[in-house]
């Protein structure tokens, strides 16, 4: 009987994030004007979910990307810029007939992998701190994005875009299906692989990992590279939603900072070694739902940023309640 208790302790952060999101989304749905006026129906729920999913999925991908790096006790301040860069690139090459489009998608994902790999290489072989590295590479990636799209423009294969942002069986948001597929194809294999386990070990205690013969370098490199890949999927989806590419500095920075918030809300420890990308996804969705709640309760949009900020502040302070149980003050310090 103790087995599930251990599993519970390990997954606590993720489960909290799921719970928070479920509660928030339920409140949102129940108070949504469509439900309020027409009553509850599967169609209405499906429509609401699609809109919410489409808005949240972008942050979810970027949050997943951030999770991989944070697990190794690093931080990626360039993840929003990779997102922007791949968006701009996609608006150029994800066009034309199916073959060209497919190649375009591969190209975009490849660039994402490359961005992540560059970050990883500098951190591992250059032995620079991740925060400094990614500030610099973020600027570089943004510069390249600007080269690609000095002004917003471009286009994307409309059929593919509509397919992936629409509904499947007229019920499920396609974007969520894609998200689930990505989780199954990227996160699950990684987290259960030797390299994934190594990434957790490195984040928890790099010295212990090294002394135990864990492949430290491979784990970090894979984490950073896959992070780039995930960010590029996000960029691709942005192109599917907006049909354009735009090198917007503010937007890129916002996604980076919001991804950190989503990751923390999702129960991933910024110190490394603990948490799951699934938690981060729910953290991202929860974060996005905050704005929706405002809309639903008819609050002046003027108050949205403040509300979002206060909710974030409360959410991150919740962890402090654990402090009451601390009896030995030395536990405050790592």
């Amino acid at each position, binding site marked *: 009987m103790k087995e599930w208790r251990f599993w519970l302790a390990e997954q606590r952060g993720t489960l909290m994030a799921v719970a928070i999101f479920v509660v928030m989304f339920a409140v949102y749905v129940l108070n949504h004007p469509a439900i309020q006026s027409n009553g509850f129906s599967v169609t209405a729920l499906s429509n609401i979910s699609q809109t919410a999913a489409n808005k949240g999925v972008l942050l979810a991908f970027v949050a997943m990307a951030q999770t991989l790096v944070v697990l*190794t*006790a*690093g*931080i990626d301040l360039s993840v929003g810029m990779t997102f922007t860069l791949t968006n701009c690139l996609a608006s150029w090459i994800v066009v034309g007939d199916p073959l060209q489009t497919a190649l375009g998608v591969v190209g975009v994902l490849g660039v994402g992998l490359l961005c992540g790999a560059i970050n990883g290489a*500098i951190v591992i072989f*250059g*032995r*620079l*701190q*991740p*925060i*400094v*590295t990614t*500030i*610099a*590479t973020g*600027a*570089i*990636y*943004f*510069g*390249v*994005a*600007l*080269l690609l799209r*000095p002004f917003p423009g471009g286009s994307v294969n409309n059929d593919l875009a509509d397919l992936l942002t629409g509904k499947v069986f007229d019920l499920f948001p396609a974007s969520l299906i894609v998200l689930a597929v990505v989780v199954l194809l990227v996160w699950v294999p990684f987290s259960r692989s030797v390299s994934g386990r190594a990434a957790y070990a490195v984040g928890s205690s*790099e*010295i212990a990992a*090294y002394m135990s013969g864990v492949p430290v370098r491979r784990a970090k490199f894979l984490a950073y590279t896959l992070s780039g890949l995930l960010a590029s999927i996000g960029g691709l989806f942005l192109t599917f939603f907006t049909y354009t590419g735009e090198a917007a*500095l*503010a937007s890129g*920075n916002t996604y980076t*900072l919001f991804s*950190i*918030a989503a990751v*923390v809300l999702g129960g991933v420890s*910024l*110190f*490394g070694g603990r948490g799951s990308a699934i938690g981060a996804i729910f953290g991202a969705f929860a974060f996005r739902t905050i704005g929706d709640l405002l809309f639903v309760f008819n609050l002046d949009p*003027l*108050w*949205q*940023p*403040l*509300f*979002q*900020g*206060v909710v*974030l*502040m409360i959410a*991150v*302070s919740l*962890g*402090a309640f654990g*402090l009451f149980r601390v009896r030995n*003050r*030395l536990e*405050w*310090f*790592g």
Partner: protein
Amino acid sequence: MTETAHQDSDGGGGRLPPFLKRLDPAVLTAFACIVLLLLVGSLYSRNFLSVEYLLQQLKVASFLGVIATGMMLVVLIGQIDLSVPWVVTTGAMMASFASSFGPAGIVLGIPFGIFCGVLLGLLNGFGVAYLRIPSMIITLATNAVAQGLMVVYSGGFSPKDTASAPMRYLATGFLVPGLPNAVIMWIVIGVLAVFLLTRTTFGRAVYGIGNRERAAYLSGINTRRIVMTTFAISGALAATGGILLAGYASKAAQSMGDAYLLPSIAAVVLGGTSILGGRGTYLGTVAGVILITLLQSILSVMQMPEAGRQIIYGLVIVGMMLLYGRERLVR
């Protein structure tokens, strides 16, 4: 944050004169790069090395310099302050707002703006010191709250965002003929910072906490109070930077602080301060600030498009950090 073996590099001080040997090699490299940049700049424009132009550069650098001073203190205790963008804006907006209330307002406007910065800094400090929340996330949250407050303020009430006369004087006036006031502000703040760090118990405690907070606590230092104070100072300095910026532009604008977050971190790090805390000198931060300002100036003199500027900016940071910011291998 990662804690790979963190030791000072040996430095190449073999053949340097004694006083230079005691300087951090990072600081030396930074100043060498400044000289290099000046030379490159002079190739593009003969005015580049003129006194007026250099003083103009110093003036622009002062804004970043004031903000980077606060960031340096926070980095020294092993933390980070991501609330800079909106604390800067809050300081500017609140100072302008308060200044609009008649003669008393003009006098109290600037202190009020700084006071708002202190409050936001205390919020950060409380979260980090007493609630043990990682600084990266609590300062992000404070940033969001500050943004929220300013959005409400500027959307709801008719915002009074014109900079007051004292603000403009501080940023653009000339108390000493030839020397811009903003530079004097930076010098004063810098001298105070150096004094604080090198000659007071507070400064010792800051380095101690950045090195090993556990040991500092067990040595009887009131670590929580020091951490809170440090964040409060950072908030005050960020707000001061905002006030200067508003004085320079004659008004406070919504995104005025965004462009100062990453450069302030970069300036601190390029100046040899370790991002993990416990190590760094103010001279290095000065060098880092000037370096970044000069780089941005040269790129604009070269009429480099924004894309190229960003790329070069990023490459320079990586390049310089690879020179002297690397961690030692643990073998």
